[in-house]
């Protein structure tokens, strides 16, 4: 509501003082809740000694060491060996040599990040495709036991992931899907499809039937009406649902850590295993975490209008 439209004399409109107090408390909360995130972001730009200094350093000289360590593996060498090498190739080489080490090769972060992308986008595409078909059928046709089927679809989300993982682990071992991207895509699709059906049914319910009926009177078949009339109308809902599925698959840890170990491992199980010499390499963890979270921040901003619907499985709509 813009200030010009709001009625100054309304008894419901909060007083100026009430608004100021509310604003102060909410902003304070928001800033405090951002501190952990800002801290991990800052840690990515510290050197390893700075990251574990006592007391913690708030002011520090930014360094690329965290990002360099994130993407490389290094081996310790004698200073004679390092001096015998030619001039350093690029900034990471230089930073590494200052620690009397040389870059041995790329780390596993990039492949894990790529796995996360493949599995998240693959499962989202499948879940939304299956979801939109089912949602349309539930929205438009009389289906026997529709409520029971919809509840069944939802109830598959109530199982603790570890409980689901036990038989999936055995099943995947039998059919050769263990530690494969395809196995993870199928699993995440199954988890996300329940959300997709529920959310998309809500979005499709909001599209007037008259649109399709008009199209069918004009000679479209039901399928043509679905693809050419309903799908374009539901585009926003489909996009919002897709982003929710992406976020779930991107963030998921329990299945990933139990069912993948190498070639199909995603970033969440990998990031906690980044260790340097003598313990966790916190700047590299900070760097890896920052890069991993950036897509989510973008999604949050894109989704802000549909968040409520997404997190309540469509139970609350604005």
């Amino acid at each position, binding site marked *: 509501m813009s200030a010009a439209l709001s009625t100054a004399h309304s008894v419901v409109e*909060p007083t100026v003082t009430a608004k100021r107090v509310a604003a102060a408390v909410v902003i304070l909360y928001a800033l405090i809740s951002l501190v952990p995130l800002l801290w991990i972001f800052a840690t990515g730009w510290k050197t390893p000694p700075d990251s574990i200094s006592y007391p913690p350093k708030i002011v520090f000289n930014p360094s690329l060491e965290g990002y360099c360590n994130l993407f490389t593996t290094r081996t310790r060498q004698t200073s004679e060996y390092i001096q015998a090498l030619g001039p350093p190739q690029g900034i990471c080489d230089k930073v590494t040599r200052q620690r009397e080490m040389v870059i041995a090769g790329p780390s596993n972060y990039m492949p894990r990040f790529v796995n996360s992308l493949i599995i998240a986008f693959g499962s989202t595409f499948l879940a939304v495709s299956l979801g939109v078909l089912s949602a349309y*059928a539930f929205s438009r046709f009389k289906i026997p036991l529709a409520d029971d089927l919809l509840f069944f679809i939802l109830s598959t989300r*109530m199982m603790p992931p*570890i409980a689901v993982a*036990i038989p999936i682990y055995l099943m995947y071992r039998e059919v050769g899907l263990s530690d494969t991207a395809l196995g993870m895509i199928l699993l995440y699709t199954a988890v996300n499809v329940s959300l997709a059906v529920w959310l998309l049914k809500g979005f499709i319910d909001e599209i007037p039937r008259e649109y399709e009926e008009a199209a069918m009177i004009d*000679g479209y*078949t039901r399928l043509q009406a679905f693809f050419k009339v309903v799908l374009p109308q539901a585009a926003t809902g489909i996009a919002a649902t897709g982003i929710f599925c992406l976020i779930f698959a991107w963030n998921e*840890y329990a299945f990933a850590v139990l069912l993948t170990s190498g070639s199909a491992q995603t970033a969440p199980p990998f990031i*906690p295993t980044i260790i340097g010499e003598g313990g966790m390499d916190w700047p590299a963890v900070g760097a890896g975490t920052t890069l991993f979270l950036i897509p989510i921040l973008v*999604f949050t901003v894109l989704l802000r209008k549909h968040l409520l619907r997404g997190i309540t499985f469509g139970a609350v709509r604005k």
Partner: protein
Amino acid sequence: MASVDAISNRPAAHRGLRGLSDRAIAWLFIAPTMILLLAINIFPLFWTIYLSFTNYASNRPNRPVVNVGLRWYRDILNSPEVWAAMQATAHFVFWTIVLQTVIGFGLAYLIDRKFRGHALWTTIILIPMMLSPAVVGNFWKFLYQPQIGLFNHVISFFTGIPASSFEMLGSVALAPWAIVIVDTWMWTPYVMLICLAGLRSIPDYIYEAAEVDRASKWRQFWSITLPMALPFIMLAVLFRGIENFKMFDMVTLLTGGGPGSTTELASITLKRQAFEAYRTGYSSAFAIILFVAVFGLANIYVKALNRVKQR
């Protein structure tokens, strides 16, 4: 488009023959989802039920499988380890719900004062709940380090207690609260967002009528605001309750169930039994018990929720 134009001149009866019937389309559209859920959710569920009556161990697949009847169910219900895990889970679920509901509702109430910029600050507050719980658990472990972590230093700055005198993750007394704090930090925005929808669903005219009747602001809050937002609050509690009953990722990364087994929640015990001790039969039985518990509690709760809605 030419084919569409051609069809449009035909009588309606022929159209149904050309395309698929609505009934066929309905089943065609639903079938893929159902097949996937049957393969990835229902078939494994029945397999788990079957395994829970056997001595199967996933690291010894060639051992002859013997029916053990209800032995695992009896063992679980008599196991002090399981009851300790249930107690830890109950502590975690109860306190996270209490804190998140109180803080979340409070924030929603304040945001509903509609001060300038409230939409921007709401979006900023929402950020933690969008993050990966595992990654959150991992970096809070860093924040909680007694010597180098930020958390202890902030506490010591405000209270004067020396930063290295307490360990949030290493102490039996503090670790259960450490996981509650992180979960509250992460999920209060979730409760806030649902409460905000509840507050915004209350029409202005009810407050106007209350003003006419000279009801105090205090009275308005208890007689209008809270009862009318209650179904929304209960919905948020339901979702948080189910999620935290299943909690695994964040706590695993943060404490791994320690120190000792003070923060070993049900899902963590389940994971240890299934994937570290390889007691597949036993853990299957435990999984079934957990599922029945969540499902049963959620059903009872939904009934209560519907009663509140109808009032």
